[in-house]
């Protein structure tokens, strides 16, 4: 039997007997993400839906100055409330999402045929209030336009003279692509899963083995160190791929509990996604296992390795954030960059978009190459004398 296989089987057996590692790989790693996600999205969505369907409470200051406007708003299912003494303060302290203020000279301007001003007081940075603000704006705009049209008709003009240009919106987003923007963070959970699943193994097979003083006897066996490393990396990769697979399955189940159809969205984490997702993730898991092992081999102790690997966990968040903040058109070369390629490919899979075979192969091959380079560098570290000696 090949020595790498012997090492792989032994590490597998030993680590499967470690309850903490198993729980990390099979439970915490894959389930944390989906659970967090379902709770978050459900709360967000149900709040949005509630607001859209229910009558909106609208505090109004000076309602008595514009009874017609108030009637029109009531027809639009606004629940008119007496206004607070200080509109600005009420909004700033989040007692109200938006306050409508009608000045005393409203009626006078209206009767003169001059533009009558009303004020809406709101806080743009308050995300939660945005839909309420938009509803108030739309309702008042609509009232203004209807009144304007009536005035034109009364003077014998067609209301269309006021609208030389009309905009008709043709939204090209599909249900899948709309879910894509919302679920753009999903690939990060899979990459994070790979890192969490491999972490315990990467530490245990290097810094841990050295600290337990079992590395020196192991290296006294007639086996090239590169093969020992290959076996250990294979175990780490296997654990991290297991975490990714379970994490994808968990998301697949979780996505059924999301009220996506209410938002007119469509999210498919089915067999197709599973296969293509695992295909692009496999070389990345190998690459990350190599990086984790390299870092752990440099560390002087188990504790130090844990600290460094904890920091390494944040690295994949960088492309995720960049891709979320700066939306751009995915170009072919981007698939060649490990992490970025996976990020783009997974996002497109989730949105139900096609990724060309060429791009997929490019992504796979380039990440595999990077993984091989990391393996070569790590095996150099593995050959150093310093590695085995604990004291």
């Amino acid at each position, binding site marked *: 039997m090949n020595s790498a296989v012997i090492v792989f089987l032994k590490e597998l057996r030993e680590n499967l007997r470690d309850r903490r590692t198993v729980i990390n790989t099979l439970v915490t790693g894959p389930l944390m993400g989906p659970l967090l996600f379902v709770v978050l999205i459900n709360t967000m969505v149900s709040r949005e839906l509630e607001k859209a369907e229910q009558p909106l409470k609208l505090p109004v200051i000076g309602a008595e100055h514009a009874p017609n406007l108030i009637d029109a708003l009531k027809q639009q299912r606004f629940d008119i409330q007496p206004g607070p003494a200080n509109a600005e303060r009420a909004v700033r302290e989040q007692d109200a999402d938006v306050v409508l203020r009608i000045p005393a000279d409203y009626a006078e301007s209206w009767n003169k045929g001059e533009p009558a001003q009303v004020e809406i007081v709101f806080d743009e940075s308050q995300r939660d209030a945005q839909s309420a603000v938009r509803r108030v704006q739309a309702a008042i705009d609509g009232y203004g336009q209807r009144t304007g049209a009536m005035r034109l008709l009364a003077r014998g003009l067609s209301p269309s003279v006021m609208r030389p240009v009309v905009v008709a919106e043709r939204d090209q987003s599909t249900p899948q692509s709309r879910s894509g923007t919302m679920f753009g963070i999903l690939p990060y959970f899979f990459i994070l899963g790979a890192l969490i699943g491999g972490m315990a193994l990467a530490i245990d097979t290097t810094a841990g083995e050295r600290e337990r003083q079992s590395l020196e006897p192991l290296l*006294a066996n007639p086996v090239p160190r590169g093969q020992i490393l290959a076996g250990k990396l294979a175990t780490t990769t296997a654990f991290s791929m297991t975490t990714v697979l379970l994490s994808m399955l968990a998301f697949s189940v979780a996505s059924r509990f999301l009220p996506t159809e209410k938002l007119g969205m469509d999210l498919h984490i089915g067999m197709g996604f599973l296969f293509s997702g695992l295909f692009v993730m496999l070389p990345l898991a190998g690459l990350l296992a190599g990086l984790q092992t390299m870092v752990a081999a440099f560390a002087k102790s188990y504790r130090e390795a844990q600290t460094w690997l904890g920091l390494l966990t944040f690295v994949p968040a960088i492309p995720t954030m960049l891709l979320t903040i700066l939306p751009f058109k995915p170009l072919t070369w981007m698939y060649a960059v490990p992490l970025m390629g996976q990020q783009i490919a997974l996002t497109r899979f989730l949105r139900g978009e096609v990724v060309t075979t060429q791009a997929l192969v490019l992504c796979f091959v380039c990440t595999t190459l990077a993984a091989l380079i990391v393996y070569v560098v790590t095996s150099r570290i593995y050959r150093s004398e310093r590695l085995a000696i604990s004291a």
Partner: protein
Amino acid sequence: MIEVRNLHKTFGSGAKKVIAVDGVHFIARDGEITGLLGPNGAGKTTTLRCLYTLMQPDSGQVLVDGIDAATDPLAVRRALGVLPDARGLYKRLTARENIAYFGQLHGLDAATIRTRSDAAIRALEMDDIADRRTEGFSQGQRVKTAIARALVHDPKNVILDEPTNGLDVMATRAMRAFLKQLKSEGRCVLFSSHIMQEVAALCDRIVVIARGRVVADESPDALRAQTGEANLEDAFVKLIGTDEGLAA
């Protein structure tokens, strides 16, 4: 047979430079027990690490059964059974699984591993612990398991770094008996120690190391004659020029 020729090994550089081994030279023959005796920090462990190719000497040559460690380290490791200073076990594997892992890495088949493990478990009197996970083993039980796994491939040459370190009186006696058994089987046994009585009781040949150099390479009797001291401990102190690091 193990031959060490003019071995040199230095760590670090500049002000922090430490000369660990400075021209060590000796031969350990088959059917004999050779003791590497020296105070702590004399360079015993570094010399042994160069022997089992964990470290590469800066200069000098190591030959095991005539094979040069620099040209064919794998063959040398195959010809050696090693109990290093570090003797950690895999605590989530049983003693038997620990032994079998090293057997597999030596390329042995399952049947051979089985017979060898059984023989070693009997010889080291560890039947009661063989199928227990090694977590929570006593120091003596750990050393026994480590020896069994080091010898699973039936090596002609056996290297042990301070084998009785941390053992109680009974375990130490058992260890000495075991070393004698290895010798009677015609193996070349090389072990390091800083304990005078142990070396005196066991060795056919004593190589005394101090500050990285060999200061004597004789039989116990010849050593006494050379230094003119009837007591070996006095002979030892006289050789290394200080009683620093000497433990009884």
